[in-house]
C-alpha cells in the first residue's frame, strides 16, 4: 500500500491491521515515534493524521491510506510545530525525553486547531503520560504558546 508520511509517498508491504507505529519504526526506520504501551494508554506514539493527534500504536496502517501522516521527524517543517519545539527547548521540558515526541505532537495538534486554548482546553488535550513528571514544564510551554500563537490570543494571566 501507499502511505503519505511527512509529505513523502512510501510504498510499504504490511498487513492492513499492522499498527502504523511499527510500520513507521521498523519498515521506514523513523524511530522518533515511540512505543510505550501498545494500548493507546500513554501517548508516546502520537502522530498527526490529517492534523489530528492519533495514537499510532492502535491505528491500523490501512486506515491512514489516502491521509497525510506527520511524525516528529517533520515537526519543524510545520510552522506551529516549530514553535512548539522552540517552546519545549525554552522551557527545558524534557528529562529522559522518551515521551516528549508524543507530547510535542499533542501540543502541535492542539495549537493548530486552536491557537489560544484555555487552561481547561489545554488540560483536556495534554493527557499523555510522563513518568519523569515534566507535566508542569509541559503546561508552562503550552501556556507560553497559547499566549503567542494566533493574533486573537489574549494574555493568559493564570500561567502555571
Amino acid at each position, binding site marked *: 500500500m501507499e502511505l503519505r508520511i511527512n509529505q513523502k509517498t512510501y510504498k510499504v508491504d504490511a*498487513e492492513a491491521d*499492522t*499498527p502504523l507505529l*511499527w510500520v513507521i*519504526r*521498523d*519498515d521506514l*526506520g*523513523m*524511530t*522518533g*515515534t*515511540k*512505543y*510505550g*504501551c*501498545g*494500548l493507546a*494508554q*500513554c501517548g*508516546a506514539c502520537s502522530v498527526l493524521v490529517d492534523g489530528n493527534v492519533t495514537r499510532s500504536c492502535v491505528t491500523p496502517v490501512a486506515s491512514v491510506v489516502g491521509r497525510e501522516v506527520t*511524525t*516528529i*521527524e517533520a*515537526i*519543524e517543517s510545520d510552522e506551529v510545530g516549530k514553535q512548539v*519545539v522552540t517552546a*519545549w*527547548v525554552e522551557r*527545558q*521540558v*524534557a*528529562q*529522559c*525525553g*522518551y*515521551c*516528549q*515526541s508524543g507530547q*510535542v505532537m499533542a501540543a502541535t495538534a492542539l495549537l493548530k486547531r486552536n491557537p489560544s486554548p484555555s487552561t481547561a482546553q489545554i*488540560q483536556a488535550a*495534554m*493527557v*499523555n*503520560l*510522563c*513518568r*519523569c*513528571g*515534566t*507535566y*508542569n*514544564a*509541559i*503546561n508552562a510551554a503550552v501556556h507560553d504558546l497559547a499566549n503567542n500563537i494566533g493574533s486573537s490570543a489574549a494574555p493568559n494571566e493564570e500561567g*502555571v
Partner: protein
Amino acid sequence: MSKRINAETPAPGEPVNLSRRRFLLSSAGTAAGALILGFGLPLGSARMQAMAAEPNAAGTQVNAFLEIRPDNTVRLLCPFIEGGQGTYTAMAQIVGEELDADPSTFVVESAPPGEAYVVMESGLRITGGSMSVRMGYPSMRRLGALARAMLLQAAGTRLNVPVSELTTEPGHVLHAASGRSLSYGELAPDAMDLPVPNAESITLRDPSKFRWIGKPVRRLDSYEKSTGKAIYAIDMQVEGMLHAAVQHAPRLGMTVGTLRNEAQVKAMKGVHSIHRLPGAVAVVAERWWHAKRAVEAIQVQWQEAAADSPLRVMPADFSSVAFREQLANEPGPGRDAENEGDTAGILAKAATVIEATYHNQHVNHAQLEPPSALARFNADGSLDIWLPNQAQDAFLADIVKRTGLEPEKIKLHTPLIGGFFGRHFLYDTANPFPQAIELAKAVGRPVKLIWSREEEFLRDVLRPVAVVKFRAALDDKGIPVAIEAVSATEGPTEGIAGEQGPELDPTALEGLTGKAYAIANKRIAQAYVKGPVMVGYWRSVGNSLNDFFYETFLDELAEKGGHDPYELRLQLLQDNQRLTHLLKSVAELSGGWKPGPFTAEDGSRRARGIAMASPFGTETAVVAEVSIENGQVRVHDIWQAIDPGSIVNPAIIEAQVNGAVALGLSQALVEETVYIDCQPRARNFDLYPVLRPSRMARVHVKVIESGAKMGGIGEPPLPAVAPAVASAVARLTGQRIRSMPMSNYTFSQPS
C-alpha cells in the same frame, strides 16, 4: 548528543591501531570516535596507565574522557548514564568549568565499561543512589583542570613562551603580552600527546569565580529530545538485524513444556524462528510486530518449577493481601539497626503510649521506555551489545559469565535511557539481554529484543513492601520521648542477594533510621521476611516508604500530644541549625505555616501537611495543600525546600524536584502493583495507574546552599511528599492515613 552509533565503521572486531593523535583528529564523526576509543584504547592497559602520571588516581586518564575537535567542540565520555536526571549537562558544567570551555560546546556520550571511568570516591561505578554529581565532582573537576594544563603546555611550546605567561578564556589559550591566541581545537593534537601532569600540580578554580557551576546552564539534550532525534536502546538498528519478542512464564520459575501450536505459529507471517529459553518462549521475525503477535499466539504448556530451581519461584497461591497479612503477623523483636536510650523502659511506664501499624504497596518502575537489548556477534566471535543499564561494569561482568567471552571481546554500548528510577540495575530475571544474546547466537544474525509492556510488567522487579509497627511514648507535655519501629520487610539489596547478610540491609530501613529529631530513646529494627516477589531499587529506595511511615506517624504523635506538627518539629530540631533553617524556609516559601483546615478562594475546604526527609546526603522539607474532590485526594500545591549543601545546576534541580514530586504523588495517591492468584492484576497502563497530568500539583522549589557536603538530587525530593500529603489529608478529614496509595480510601467531603 546521542548520535547513532554507526556500528559498521570500522569493521567489527578489526583491531584499530590508531595513535592518540589520530584519535584526536578523527573528528569526522563521533560515531567513529566512539568505536575507536572502545577498540583502540584498551582500558586499564599499561599503555593507558603510562599516560597518566598517577595511574591509580581516578579520572586522570584525560584521553579516555576527552576529545577536543578542530572546531573547538569538546566530546566528553561520561562515566554516568543519562536517563533524564541531567547528569550529562552537569558533567559538562563541571569539566567545562575547570577546562575553561563553555558547556554548550560539549557533546556528551556514555563511556564504555572500564576502570578508567571509576571516578567516584567510593570506587564504585554505577549511576544511582543520587551519587553521580556529588561523588564524581572532585574527579571531574580535576579532569578538566588536567586537560587545561595540557593545553597550556602545548601552547607554551607552540608560542615558545613560558606557560606562566599564558591564560585561558573559554576555548582558547591567550598570550596577553604578544596578543596571540590559539584555540583549544588547534592545540588539541599537540596537547593530548603530552603526558598527563601530576594531579597534585593542579590548582582548581576558586569557587567564587565559577561561571557555570552553580548556574542554570541549559540542558544539552533538550533539542534532540524535543524533535525525536534522541536515540534510545529501543531505537538501535544495525545491518541484517532481526527482531524478537518473548512470552514469559506466568509465574517465575516455571519452565517451558510443549508448544501446542508450534507449527501454526511457525507458519505465521514474518516468523523466522521459535525458541525455547529459560522460563520463556521467543519468536524471532523480520519485524517486531510479527514477532510479538506470533509469540503471544503460542500456547505453551508451562511446567511447574523443579524443586531445586535456583530462581525465586512464585507460588501459585500468592496474593498481595495475604502477603501483607503475613508481614503484619511476623512475630519477634527484629534485629536492631538503631537502639539508643531505654526505649523499652520508657514505653513500659509512660502514661501515654501510642501505637500504630503502617504499610506500603509494591510498585513497578513503569519507565516509559520498555526494556530492550540488541546483540550482535561479529565474525571474529566478538559481541556488540546495546542495552539500557545503570552499571556498565556489572553488566559486562555478567555477560562475560554468561557467554564465556573474554571481556575484551565484548563491546557494551549504553544509549540514552528512557527513564530508569532504579529499573536498569542487574536483576537476575528482569533484563532482556541474556535472551537477546542467546537468540543472536542461535540465529547467527543480530537480534533486537524488545519486551512488550505486558512482559515488562510481569518481570519488572518491584519496590519492596513493609509493614511497620510503631510505638511511641509522650511525656506529660505531649512531647515524644521514645519511639520504636519494627519493620517486617525485605530490603532491595538483600532481596537481590537472595538472603540477609551478616549486617542489616541499610536500604531496608533508611528513612526510619537516620532521623535527626531529638528523641532520646529510640529503637529501629527489622524483622527480615523473604518474600516471593523479585524486589529491586525504586527512586529514593527505602526512603520512599520509610519516610512516609515515620513522618506520618510523627504527625499522629503531634496531634495526640496536642502540638502543631510544624512547631513540634522545630522543637525536636532546636539544636540543629541546618534543619531548623530548612523547616522555616519551607514554611516561608508556602507563605507562612498555615495548617488549616481553611476555605480556599474557590470555596473548597483545604488543609496543609508538613514532612521532612534526609535522603542521600540531602535535606528536604515539604508542605502539601490538599482538598477532597469526588471522594479522592486532590493535591493543589507542593512547596519543597531542599538543601543539598552545594549545587551544580539549579534549573536541573528544580526539574528533578518536579519529577520527584510527581513520582511521590503517584505512589501516595494512585499507584500500586497488586497480585491476585499469583498474577499481577495490571500488565499495562490501563490497569496500572501512574500519576496523570490532571493530578499533578503546582510545585514551588527553594534551593538552599548551606555549604554542607554536597548531597544527591535525583532521589531526595521524593520521600517527604507522601507524608506531607497524608498529614494534610488527616488534618482535613480527621481520617488517619497509614497506607499508600490513598485511592484505597474513600473520603467524604469535609465541611
